[in-house]
């Protein structure tokens, strides 16, 4: 297979803190060492992109990345916040240059995260289509030939000759997306994390991606959503603190990624690190969560088949809140939600004063043997807006044998995730 994108030993260094004081002196220092034919003194230092340790002002957002993407591949890129995904995308879209290394590309590269960039509010939709298309690298003739298709795809209709400042934000996004979607690049980059718009629009994004992939073009897909990675991508790449830690088929990459937190030890981590929040408004914060059986309240990470268990979580509320609901989800090893429960379905809504709370949830179902994890969220019930959301936490395992070791899950492959209540009726008719 022919390579279409080659990343060779690419690194990117950033300077932390305010740019301003000291820049001139650093610049002079750099210049002085260049004159003497020496290496840039600031490239030697710099720690890996771990957001918690502070040993240098300079940080490597990416360090020594090597990737070889073949033509027609659909590749998923996964990693935690701060793993270097956005930096990689920035380098690929040429917004900024690498500090060292080389990226080689064949053909046009376009990304769906730049939807509607460069729209000028005073210009009409039509004028903006031309402008935006030209910014993305299309020629005037190319846009003109695709204009009808773009207009049709956007569904803007007769608003096309109205200044875009009169558009709703949805219309603006649709028009921008329509332009980007007709760029016909050889390599398409989609960043789902940054993709704006409603669910409908995101669906459209995914559909377009599938279409592009089926035409045999290359797609790079960045997402937090393991389900879409698994459905769309054949190959997966895991980024961790600026390094590529795993390259393989997407299923393996996902399980590698999800078990990163577990791999270093057998110690059970029940404390929730603040960087695990996918979304946080600062009104409340999950402090810890773990599962336990009913013997005592000690955290366990292995359960027997059909063993009853409960989830215990500590939460800190920073400001008085009302009409609050809390939800708990059970996730499978691919990060997909297999079951979900929320507070308000059983009782009235919560009214929480400032302070710390312990939440306990008795699991009413039995899990099939396999690997699972927890998802937690606290949110305003009526508006649905999330206060704190932990996506994939506390991986645990359900074993094949039961507590008394007398019974065992009878089949080699596990069927499903949740055990159903058995109630059979067999009658001759």
């Amino acid at each position, binding site marked *: 297979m022919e390579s279409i994108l080659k990343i060779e030993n690419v690194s990117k260094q950033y*300077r932390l803190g305010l740019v301003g004081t000291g820049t001139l002196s650093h610049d002079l220092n750099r210049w002085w060492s260049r004159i003497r034919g020496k290496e840039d003194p600031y490239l030697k230092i710099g720690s890996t992109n771990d957001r918690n340790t502070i040993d240098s002002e300079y940080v490597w957002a990416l360090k020594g990345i090597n990737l070889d993407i073949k033509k027609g591949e659909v590749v998923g890129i996964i990693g935690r916040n701060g793993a270097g995904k956005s930096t990689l995308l920035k380098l690929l879209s040429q917004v900024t240059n690498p500090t060292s290394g080389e990226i080689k590309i064949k053909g046009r590269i376009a990304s769906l995260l730049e939807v509607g960039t460069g729209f000028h509010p005073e210009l009409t939709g039509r004028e903006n289509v*031309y402008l935006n298309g030209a910014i993305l690298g299309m020629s005037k003739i190319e846009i003109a030939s695709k204009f009808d298709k773009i207009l049709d795809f956007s569904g803007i209709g007769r608003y096309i000759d109205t200044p875009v400042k009169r558009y709703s934000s949805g219309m603006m996004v649709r028009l921008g997306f329509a332009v980007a979607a007709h760029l016909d690049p050889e390599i398409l980059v989609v960043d789902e994390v940054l993709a704006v718009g409603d669910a409908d629009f995101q669906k459209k994004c995914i559909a377009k991606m599938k279409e592009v992939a089926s035409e045999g073009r290359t797609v790079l897909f960045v997402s937090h959503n393991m389900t879409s990675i698994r459905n769309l991508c054949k190959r997966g790449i895991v980024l961790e603190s600026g390094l590529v830690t795993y390259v393989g088929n997407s299923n393996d990459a996902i399980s590698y990624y999800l078990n990163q937190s577990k791999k270093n030890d057998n110690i059970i981590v029940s404390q929730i690190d603040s960087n695990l929040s996918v979304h946080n408004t600062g009104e409340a914060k999950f402090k810890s969560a773990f599962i336990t059986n009913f013997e005592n309240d000690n955290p366990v990470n292995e359960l027997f088949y059909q063993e009853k268990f409960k989830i215990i979580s500590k939460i800190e509320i920073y400001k008085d809140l009302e009409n609050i609901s809390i939800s708990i989800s059970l996730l499978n090893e691919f990060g997909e939600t297999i079951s979900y429960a929320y507070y308000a379905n059983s009782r009235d809504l919560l009214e929480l004063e400032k302070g710390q709370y312990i939440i306990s949830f008795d699991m009413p179902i039995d899990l099939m043997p396999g690997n699972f994890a927890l998802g937690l969220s606290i949110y305003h019930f009526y508006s649905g807006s999330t206060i704190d959301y932990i996506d994939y936490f506390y991986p645990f395992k359900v074993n094949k044998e039961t507590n008394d070791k007398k019974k065992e899950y009878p089949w080699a492959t596990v069927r499903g995730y949740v055990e159903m209540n058995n109630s059979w009726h067999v009658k001759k008719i």
Partner: protein
Amino acid sequence: MVKNQNEKWTLIISPNNKFKLNNFSKLLFKYKDLLFLFVKRDFVSQYKQTILGPLWFFIQPLLTTITFTVIFGNLAKIPTDGVPKILFYMSGITFWNYFADCVNKTCTTFVLNQGLFSKVYFPRIIVPFSVVMNNLLKFGIQFLLLLLFWLYFYFSTKEINPNYTISFLPLLVLIMALLGLGLGMIISSLTTKYRDLTFLVSFGVQLMMYASPIVYPISLVSYEYKWLIFLNPMTSVIETFKYGFLGHGEHEFIWLLYSIVISIIVFFVGLVIFNKVEKSFIDTV
């Protein structure tokens, strides 16, 4: 090791792409549609939702000319070498405005377009080029106004004696464009790191105006200091114009040549610095 013959890359991104004039002109050609669309965008959007619309192109220099005529001509009584005051000031202002707009508007390239630049790649140089071209359009319109006044005075008085130097006009415009663009690119590249410059620019351009023969004729400057005024590359541009169109002013080939050389140097220094900064400015801006 067998070298793979298939490996023909269309794009190679590496830390330090050296500036090559050849590549640069190719890029400019490839993105010419974008260049014209930017010019159109800026031109069209400038006077949207104004009652007078493009008429403002005429009103601005007209008002400045009147102000200068009243203050410098009538109150301060600075002579104009026998040239009708209105014509004297208007020609200075029209030329100076073009240069000043080129500098003032290109020097904010990076800071103003940060949002766009941080998302999409296209040759950043398109933006300052489009600004200069947009200003050229504006200059053209204002020059028509100047021409109107010139024709009026040409037929009604005997003070105006145009000569062959009139044909230098395109060259003069080119010098100003290169100079304005070059300075603008240098300043905009430096402001990405050192914001202090933004404060200096508008002040500096204003100061430079007083170092050019706009509000006074060059003949007012005593002989031993004249070279100082001519060191300003804009001086001979304005003087050559006045000499050609009005028949007054001091036009010397050697100083015109000096202006040409300076503007070319400034332009290329600007290109090189701009090219260097555009690769990584998003990290420092």
